[in-house]
């Protein structure tokens, strides 16, 4: 099982990468960490004519705080973000979620941009970026544009990115101090893609009511799903057990899981509701703690 013949170009900067993509059309593929693309090539499920390697573009791997948001370059390795103090201080949901992505060896090479561009509906990072209302920054022949996470993912393994666009990074709003975060997943084994995953962030006002809640699920549709109805059910309320249960009860109407070899849709629905309740409970419990 070997990759098919392919040409290879190392881009020196993003403009060069975009120019190579524009020249070769949809036959060209960006090569980031290779942790999804190389196996797809070995299975002959992907047969790009040319790989545009963006691994040596300087500065695409930054992890920075800037004006209340966290900026992560597309080539930041998942493991580096997981271990980054800057990322943990701004968006503590990130390191928690990344620990569920494959294994250390996969995260050493796998990139944040690669996971988002690959758009696996079961993946953790797309769910985090969707929950937090992140913005994806794309560069193409016509310049740079930003796309909100909820508009970026359009289906299983598909996004709004044009074949000649490069994802250069993602911008996530900083979570206020004392925000509680939680990730809940059901997977067959550690490191496997989740059957259903839920990410949550909750902040409480001084009077104990919820003044910020961010919630998304993976594995329940062809794209990661922000659970707006559940967020609305919790906003402004005191997070009692009844309120959390009522919020979780809204999940059923927000998701469209499919049957597959891993689990029937009905099971995914059941698990999604359960994991939302658990994730919200855990996030509430962890909120109020200084980081």
């Amino acid at each position: 099982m070997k990759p098919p013949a392919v040409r290879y170009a190392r881009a020196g900067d993003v403009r060069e990468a975009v120019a190579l993509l524009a020249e070769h059309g949809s036959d060209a593929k960006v090569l980031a960490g290779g942790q999804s693309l190389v196996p797809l090539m070995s299975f002959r499920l992907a047969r790009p004519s040319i790989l545009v390697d963006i691994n040596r573009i300087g500065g695409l791997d930054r992890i920075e705080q800037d004006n209340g948001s966290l900026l992560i370059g597309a080539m930041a390795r998942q493991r580096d973000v997981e271990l980054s103090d800057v990322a943990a201080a701004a968006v503590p949901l990130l390191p928690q979620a990344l620990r569920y992505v494959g294994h250390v060896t996969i995260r050493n090479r796998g990139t944040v941009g690669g996971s988002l561009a690959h758009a696996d509906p079961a993946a953790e990072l797309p769910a985090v970026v969707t929950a937090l209302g992140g913005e994806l920054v794309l560069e193409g022949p016509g310049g740079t544009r930003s796309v909100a996470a909820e508009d970026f993912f359009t289906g299983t393994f598909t996004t709004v990115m044009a074949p000649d666009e490069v994802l250069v990074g993602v911008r996530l709003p900083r979570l206020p101090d004392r925000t509680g975060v939680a990730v809940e997943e059901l997977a067959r084994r550690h490191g496997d893609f989740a059957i259903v995953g839920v990410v949550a962030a909750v902040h409480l006002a001084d009077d104990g009511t919820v003044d910020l809640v961010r919630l998304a699920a993976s594995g329940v549709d062809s794209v990661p799903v922000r659970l707006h109805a559940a967020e609305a059910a919790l906003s402004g309320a005191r997070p009692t057990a009844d309120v959390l249960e009522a919020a979780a009860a809204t999940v059923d109407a927000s998701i469209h899981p499919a049957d597959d070899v891993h689990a029937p849709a009905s099971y995914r629905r059941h698990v999604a509701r359960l994991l939302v309740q658990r994730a919200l409970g855990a996030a509430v419990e962890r909120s109020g703690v200084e980081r």
Partner: protein
Amino acid sequence: MTELASGSTSQRELASESTSQRNTESITVTVNGHAYTADCEPRVTLADFLRHTCGLTGTHLGCEHGVCGACTILVDGRSARACLMLAVQADGATITTVEGLAAGNALNPLQEAFWDNHGLQCGFCTPGMLMTATELLADNPDPDAAEVREGLSGNLCRCTGYDSIVRSVLDAAQRMRG
């Protein structure tokens, strides 16, 4: 999985592939302290480069799609799947393979601990286990059994049932702490 691969690639396709798009690049990779320079097609994985071009067959290939861990090596000090990197991407890199662990016939403490604790039977998974454990113990010199199990969760073994591997790594940690 095998079906997918063989079903979509006929011999004819393979033959035409190798003639139509051939392009090679000269790369230099330092493996276990030796520099290897060779012309390489972009499609060649780093695993195949190590095995066929460098003759270092200690790096094993189980699945060739990232899930078994047998091909795990260190690239610039960090573990990586050699089957998921193209050799051309490693141009200029410093690599350690399982052959780089022992000094001649003297096993390193991790290898010795595998020997003493029956951490291998057929040995197929062992190079990947050793390389993954090398990084694990460098990051966390005093892991508990649960941490070792999580750290090795990306490496599959069909023989040992894992208990003896976990024991080996815990024993190695103790030996290395002195």
